[in-house]
């Protein structure tokens, strides 16, 4: 493995600084005893204590996480199957058509997706709430998964599958032992982007939610008129720290358990 020289390191540092700058800005002001995101007055933790007392907000946060995790999981599963289906389509025109249909939800403005899903749900009689939000999030996350998985599938050499079949593998084996491991990076990429879509979505969720169910985005956007409170900054700070800790923790653990393997591979 080549070592990174100085210039690329500098480049990456700049990229990371820019990516995290707004987040640190938000977190910085979560400690502001003043009212808003300007004029830092003095350090305080009051917004964090307010956050823990606000059970409604915490409950909304939990809703948001559940929807994000489950929708990303299900949409990844369906998306991978969809990518496989597209990959093995014989007719090229058909394949292109399906691929275009797949991508429509990515291009459609959220307002349209939200409004049409709302009409759809009321037509087929789905009760608005957790289920309708979850289904919608699954629906708009599927295309991104397909788009992430498909290039990996295309890179896979068909001879790989043929070889496996020649060696007596069943079709099921081919799928679980050859294809899936090969496209794993694409699957994870799709999963994480689905997670991103779900966490960020406001407009679609707004239209299809109801009966007391709400997510963080809906809550934050509806605060815009009277001003987003710093409690939300505190919440973002907290989410950020927990996420980073989880990621680093998970990474450390998985590296430890994996260490011997990677040693061999090298």
């Amino acid at each position, binding site marked *: 493995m080549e070592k990174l020289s100085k210039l690329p390191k500098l480049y990456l540092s700049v990229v990371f600084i820019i*990516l995290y700058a707004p987040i640190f*800005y938000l977190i910085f002001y979560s400690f502001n005893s003043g009212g808003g*995101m300007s004029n830092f007055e003095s350090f305080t933790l009051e917004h964090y204590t307010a956050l823990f007392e606000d059970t409604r907000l915490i409950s909304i946060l939990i809703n948001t996480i559940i929807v994000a995790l489950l929708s990303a999981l299900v949409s990844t599963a369906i998306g991978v199957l969809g990518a*496989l289906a597209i990959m*093995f389509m014989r007719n090229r025109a058909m394949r292109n058509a399906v691929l275009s249909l797949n991508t429509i939800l990515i291009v459609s403005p959220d307002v349209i997706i939200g*409004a049409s899903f709302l009409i759809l749900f009321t037509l087929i009689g789905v009760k608005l709430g957790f289920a309708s939000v979850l289904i919608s999030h699954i629906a708009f996350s599927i295309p991104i998964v397909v788009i992430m998985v498909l290039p990996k599938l295309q890179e896979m050499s068909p001879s790989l599958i043929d070889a496996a079949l020649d060696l007596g593998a069943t079709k099921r084996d081919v799928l679980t032992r050859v294809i899936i491991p090969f496209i794993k990076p694409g699957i994870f990429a799709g999963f994480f982007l689905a997670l991103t879509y779900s966490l960020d979505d406001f407009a679609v969720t707004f239209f299809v939610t109801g009966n007391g169910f709400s997510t963080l985005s809906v809550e934050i956007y509806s605060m815009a008129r009277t001003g987003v409170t710093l409690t939300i900054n505190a919440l973002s700070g907290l989410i950020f720290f927990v996420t980073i800790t989880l990621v680093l923790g998970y990474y450390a653990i998985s590296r430890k358990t994996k260490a011997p393997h990677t040693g061999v591979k090298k």
Partner: protein
Amino acid sequence: MNNKPLRPLYTLPYAAWIILFVIAPIALIVYYSFLDLVGNFTLDNYRNFFSSVYLKLTISSFWYAFLITAFALLFAYPTAYFLTKTKHKYLWLLLIIIPSWINLLLKTYAFIGLFGLYGPINAFLELTGLGKQQILFTDFSFVFVSVYIFIPFMILPIFNSLDKLNPTLIDASRDLGANSWTTFRRVIWPLTLNGVKSGIQVVFIPALSLFMITRLIAGNKVITLGTAIEQQFLVTQNWGMGSTIAVFLILFMFIIMLMTSGKERGASINGKVK
């Protein structure tokens, strides 16, 4: 490819999704696009779209989407490339995605603060003697924040295709006397083209329908098709006109999809590079 490892049963959820959540809403949109304010059949919406205002909007939308995609690619490619060379590459990759999990509206507010006349960037500019600059509500800030939002979506597919790039290919190219640039142009770039195309698709297409940022960061000095649709649906409540613009957006998308898919697929599948 004669073998079909997939039974129809496996593809059922995906097919059901396409019918329920893609075809049905499109049918709905197309239907609405032929309705006027009171629900009568009309072609006025289409006629209206070809008026100067919407054509101007379309052209400016495309221009900005192009700028956003170009800059995103320009910055994402080296990032993805260098990331694959780092020691803990998957960890770093994850760290690229994590910022996008923080609410977009909040991050936009943060950018308003960062770019503001009294924000840290202007404080820095003043230190360097450049003096205060109006950064907010300019084309620059709009493109910058849009690239910021979309860049993880560009980095990820490129990273994926770079990641599994067979290093022996690069070595071989070097051994055959190619310099770094030639190696990149003739070996690395063609082999990562699929990833780049995915990236372009997931950046260019949504960039056409960006809204909110156009208001918060560009102060409505940039107006996109997405903004227009949102206005028609929510403010003017002219669902017919909103749907018509959406129909065109979908048409544009089909064209872009056709342009970014196709010919070289066979080549890369066989691992052959021209």
